[in-house]
């Protein structure tokens, strides 16, 4: 994974790890565990076991797990087939695979540049 090759500015939350609080991640946050609180990252990757509850802000979000409450993707939001986004969702660009779950209030925002996601 990208986070393994370049640790600087990255946050990795392993499976089974539970975090509480506010996190500012300058680069990539990859979450396999569970986070409660506020997280801001450039790129957020939530694995299928990952659960985030709270306010989430990132340029690029790649979601295989769950995000509850508030979610803002300033560039792109990609919900995979196992992904779940519930609550208030803001995005510049969105994609959902069949099986992905998206519920709540949706709002499109103007993206600040093209999405540079490497899907």
């Amino acid at each position, binding site marked *: 994974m990208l986070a393994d090759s370049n640790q600087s500015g990255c946050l990795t939350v392993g499976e089974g790890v539970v975090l509480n609080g506010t996190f500012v991640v300058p680069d990539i946050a990859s979450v396999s565990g569970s986070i409660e609180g506020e997280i801001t990252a450039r790129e957020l990757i939530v694995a299928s076991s990952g659960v985030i509850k709270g306010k989430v802000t990132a340029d690029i979000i790649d979601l295989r797990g769950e995000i509850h409450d508030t979610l803002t993707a300033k560039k792109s939001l990609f919900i995979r087939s196992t992904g779940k986004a519930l609550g208030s969702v803001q995005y510049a660009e*969105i*994609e959902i695979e069949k099986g992905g779950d*998206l*519920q*709540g209030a949706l709002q499109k925002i103007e993206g600040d540049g093209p999405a540079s996601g490497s899907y």
Partner: protein
Amino acid sequence: MFINKRKNDEREKMASPNDTSQAVSQPEPVVPEPVIPEPEAAFAANGNGAAKPAANNLKPSIISEGFEFIGEIRSNGYLTVDGTVRGTLSLHSIQIGVTGVLDGNVTCDTMNVKGNFSGSLDCRDLTIGSRAVVDGKVSFKSITIQRGGIVKGELKKKA
């Protein structure tokens, strides 16, 4: 259809006036209209009453580009909207083409949006294309959004 066939026969005759082998004079047998089974029959065949059956035996209806329809549509078949439709729709399957605009209250099984939808939608399978805009109250069982598709409003997943 019958007239065209006659014309073709005549043309063939003119092209080869010596060829009299084919019985051009014999009238074409009139083909009876295919009998469209009642939609209820399709329902009955489907033991599970939860999901509507695909109405394969119904021909699709098309609201073409430049065509505007205001009112209510009820069918167990397919509708393609390339023009504009405003009103209440209850169908099995709807496709909104790239140029299509659909505004209103819609209940259907499968919905495929490539154009513009606004209003309230209740469906099982929703597909939103990359150039589509969906705005309103949407409830679905399964959703797919292609990259670039725009969705605004309230989304709800049915159990």
